[in-house]
């Protein structure tokens, strides 16, 4: 976007010249189409040149006036439209396919025009020799089938109609919550596919021999995840620690043999063997790595769309011209939106007109005290809750009744979910007490506090789970399953009480006309929390993404019905792209980073339990990979280089430090480039202003000369008095100093004289004092 700003401003400088009327895409004379075609001809020419060589940054130096670059360029306005079109088609042909498609899509011509362009393109395409023509047809056929596939995907778009209904009624803000839900669904779907294909399926096909005494299915398993489910493919403990082989016998393989020496059966199929521990380790690692890449990519794309270098001041203009949401189609929502915009405009006007009132020292102190009190309340309540969870989790209820013991496992998740539900209410109260002026600051503070609560709760739970029980991994997996489920149940309850019953209450009892507002930030944070749990749990419960998918699916429909029935759009201005960027960043940084750090620590340094799971009898889970490399080296000494590479790159932290260092250096360079572009933008803006002032100055000067020529007796009564040549010279000198000119202005003055002498009747003399004083 710095490049966009630079490009826009340099185009503006080019357009400041009257002869560049041709490059204006909107000239609505009869030659509008011709103007567009010639403009795009120039652009494709520039693109072709740019693809061959890099643009020169020296074009933006202070001494050169960029607008003069356009001066003297070929301005063949006498060219017929047809030949321009041919030249444009020629340029298009010489671009690469992606450039051509992008150019075509960006052209403000009608579809008929564009197909005529393509028609000309194909006529010359038939002149290719026959072998390349075959290749050409194959490529066309492949592309055609790819577009048909995309069309098919588009037609079965998930929830297209539902999203349209929501956006039609509530606008883009509430829609962003549902789009975020859809994004999370796709992440989980990807995780489910990967773990399902590489871990669950092989193990399900080759079930291990299970210990005796499996409990039967009772309904409680769905809530607690223990009992019948604890010895199924759902949890870590079920997975075998040997290489699965397709055997001829019925008993399905031999247990407790060391790793990949594997089973020595009589008839062993050499082809189908599957090293389960290695597969487990690598699947989790690769899934996390790919998720990381996708997250970082979408975060950077979202950041790029919402970050603006030039944080300037055209707020009012933006509010007037960019704030109408074209997606809203319901009549009441449209009325509400126009009321919102009016209110915001009035507030902005009041802000702009009023001088900012400085607080006295006493008021500042008071505000500081209030803020301090609010933060103390928040941090204090968070600490109290964390301690409560710590002591509660330490105590265990042991009872003779097995069912009650199982049900008591639900106690901790219920307590945690209750805390997650109630404490944000307390934070809202504290924020209401503090009374922030700016709504975005208020939102960020609320997000900070919620984040602090959730991070501390999750941190404590992680510490509490590690290494307590025998076969602790399955236990952790079960706990995470319970937490996820309780989170879902409490979200349902919150939707019921917070939205449905509150709406009834406020309508019937409080007699308010307006429905409650859908709190987007809080709901998105809940989604992020649930996703963190899912990511934490994948290592221990490979089927947890499936549970999360079901949960998100149900949540979509429940939230949608609740929103349509009970809520209305937020009244405060909601900056969608900024908030979406914040949420994706929160998903990436505390949520995914925390989960992957936990998983990495578990894999790298914690001893797996010795009685269950695919990594028993290993010191760390990471050893699975290492042993495999050693086995490879033993079997095939040529691969020793791989083993050595493995030990240097993966085990040695030096490589990681160097990588991180290089990464930081690259980031630093990029930030310096952004700074430089910012400086260029301000320079260009200054030059535009100066050119505008030049133009005004020359207009008034020429006007005055013309008037003097016409009626030498009549004195000029305008505020611009330029009679004395000494003052004129001084003016020229001062202008020269500010712009540091050489020959260009003289020629431009000559040009202006010729041009404006034919247009004096149309020119107004600027009479506002600001302009006059600037000229003076």
């Amino acid at each position, binding site marked *: *976007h710095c490049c966009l*700003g630079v490009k*826009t401003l340099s*185009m*503006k400088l080019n*357009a*400041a010249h009257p002869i560049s009327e041709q490059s*204006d895409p*909107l*000239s*609505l004379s009869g030659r509008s189409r011709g103007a567009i075609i010639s403009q795009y001809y120039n652009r494709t020419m520039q693109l072709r040149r740019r693809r061959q060589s890099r643009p020169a940054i020296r074009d933006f130096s202070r001494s050169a006036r960029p607008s003069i670059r356009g001066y003297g360029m070929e301005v063949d306005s006498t060219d017929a439209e047809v030949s321009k079109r041919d030249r444009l088609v020629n340029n298009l042909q010489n671009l690469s396919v992606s450039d051509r*498609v*992008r150019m075509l*899509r*960006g052209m*403000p011509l*009608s*579809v*008929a025009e564009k*197909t005529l362009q*393509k028609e000309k393109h*194909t006529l010359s*395409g038939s002149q290719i020799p026959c072998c390349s023509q075959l290749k050409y047809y194959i490529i*066309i056929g492949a*592309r055609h089938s790819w*577009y048909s596939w*995309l*069309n098919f995907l588009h037609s079965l778009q998930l929830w297209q109609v539902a999203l349209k209904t929501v*956006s*039609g009624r509530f606008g883009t803000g509430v829609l962003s919550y549902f789009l975020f839900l859809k994004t999370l669904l796709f992440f989980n779907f990807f995780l489910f596919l990967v773990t399902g294909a590489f871990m669950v399926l092989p193990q399900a096909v080759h079930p291990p021999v299970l210990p005796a005494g499996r409990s039967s299915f009772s309904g409680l398993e769905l809530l607690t995840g223990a009992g019948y489910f604890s010895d199924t493919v759902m949890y870590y403990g079920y997975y075998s620690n040997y290489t699965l082989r397709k055997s001829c016998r019925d008993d399905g393989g031999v247990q407790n043999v060391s790793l990949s020496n594997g089973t020595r059966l009589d008839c062993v199929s050499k082809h189908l063997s599957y090293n389960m521990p290695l597969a487990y380790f690598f699947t989790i690692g690769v899934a996390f790595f790919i998720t990381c890449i996708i997250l970082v990519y979408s975060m950077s794309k979202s950041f790029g*769309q919402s970050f*603006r270098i030039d944080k*300037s*001041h*055209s*707020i*009012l*203009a*933006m509010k*007037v*011209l*960019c*704030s*109408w949401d*074209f*997606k*809203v*189609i319901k*009549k009441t929502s*449209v*009325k509400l939106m*126009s009321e919102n*915009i*009016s209110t915001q405009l009035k507030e902005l006007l009041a802000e702009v007109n009023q001088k900012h009132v400085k607080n006295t020292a006493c008021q500042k102190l008071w505000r500081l005290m209030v803020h301090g009190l609010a933060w103390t309340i928040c941090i204090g309540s968070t600490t109290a809750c964390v301690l409560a969870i710590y002591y509660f989790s330490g105590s265990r209820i042991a009872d003779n009744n097995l069912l009650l013991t199982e049900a008591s496992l639900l106690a901790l998740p219920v307590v945690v979910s209750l805390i997650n539900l109630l404490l944000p209410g307390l934070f809202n109260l504290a924020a209401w007490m503090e009374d922030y002026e700016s709504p975005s600051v208020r939102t960020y503070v609320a997000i900070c506090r919620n984040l602090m609560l959730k991070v501390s709760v999750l941190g404590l739970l992680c510490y509490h789970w590690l290494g307590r029980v025998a076969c602790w991994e399955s236990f952790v997996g079960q706990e995470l399953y319970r937490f996820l489920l309780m989170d879902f149940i409490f979200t349902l309850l919150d939707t019921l009480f917070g939205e449905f019953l509150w709406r009834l209450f406020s309508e019937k009892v409080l007699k308010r006309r307006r429905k409650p507002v859908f709190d987007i930030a809080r709901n998105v944070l809940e989604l992020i929390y649930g996703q963190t749990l899912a990511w934490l749990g994948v290592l221990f419960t490979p089927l947890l993404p499936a549970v999360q998918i079901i949960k998100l699916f149900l949540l979509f429909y429940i939230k949608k019905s609740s929103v349509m029935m009970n809520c209305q759009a937020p009244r405060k201005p909601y900056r969608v*792209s900024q908030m979406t960027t914040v949420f994706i960043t929160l998903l990436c940084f505390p949520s995914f980073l925390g989960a992957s750090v936990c998983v990495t620590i578990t894999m790298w340094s914690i001893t797996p339990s010795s009685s269950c799971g695919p990594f028993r009898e290993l010191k760390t889970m990471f050893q699975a990979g290492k042993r495999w490399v050693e086995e490879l080296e033993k079997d095939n000494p040529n691969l020793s280089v791989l083993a050595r590479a493995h030990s240097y790159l993966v085990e040695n932290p030096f490589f990681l430090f160097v990588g991180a260092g290089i990464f930081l250096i690259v980031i630093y360079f990029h930030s310096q480039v952004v700074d430089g572009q910012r400086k260029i933008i301000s320079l260009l803006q200054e030059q*535009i*202003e100066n050119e*505008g002032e030049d*133009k005004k100055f020359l207009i008034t000067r020429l006007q005055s000369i013309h008037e003097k020529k016409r009626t030498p007796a009549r004195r000029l009564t305008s505020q611009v008095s330029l009679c004395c040549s000494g003052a004129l010279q001084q003016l020229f000198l001062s202008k020269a100093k500010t712009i540091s000119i050489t020959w260009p202005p003289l020629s431009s003055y000559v040009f202006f004289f010729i041009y404006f002498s034919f247009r004096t009747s149309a020119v107004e003399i600027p009479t506002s004092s600001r*302009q006059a004083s600037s000229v003076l």
Partner: protein
Amino acid sequence: VCRETTVESSMKRDNKPNCPVLVPSVILHSRYRELAPHLVPLDYTNNPDIRVPLALIVAMPELKENPFRDRIVETFSEDGHGNLSFNDFVDMFSALCETSPRELKTIYAFKIYDFNRDSFICKEDLRKTLNKLTKGDLTPEEVTLVCDKSIEEADLDGDSKLSFSDFENMISKAPDFLSNFHVRI
């Protein structure tokens, strides 16, 4: 929709040079036909010159409540009075769709807000825009003040009206523009 109409139709042309100029997308054609079933034929192979009048187009649910509906339809019409042929209809929805490029949206937004079609957004254009936006909630003095301040903020070269470059510069600073200037069909 965007991809299909601008590239796929031209790709289909590459395969069969004798097929008609346009391959209409099924959804858009059915929506277009719904507006005036007696006017619009089912078969477009002869490329008939049918234009649906403005009054029928702005009755579409996607446009019915939009305060700028007349200007949108006029901008995309060939004759400037709002009578859309099917080509124009497709143009309109592909320019307003989600994946339409930023430059295209900026150009058409400028055309829509330029009520008097002089390639500049002057104070009068802004005043009309504001009145349509707020539907009389602001007093005339407030409207004048808002227009003056907006021009002051966004006008770079001081000619007290917004040219396309001023508009484009301002839009590049508004990150919500792309998601707001989008009509779902």
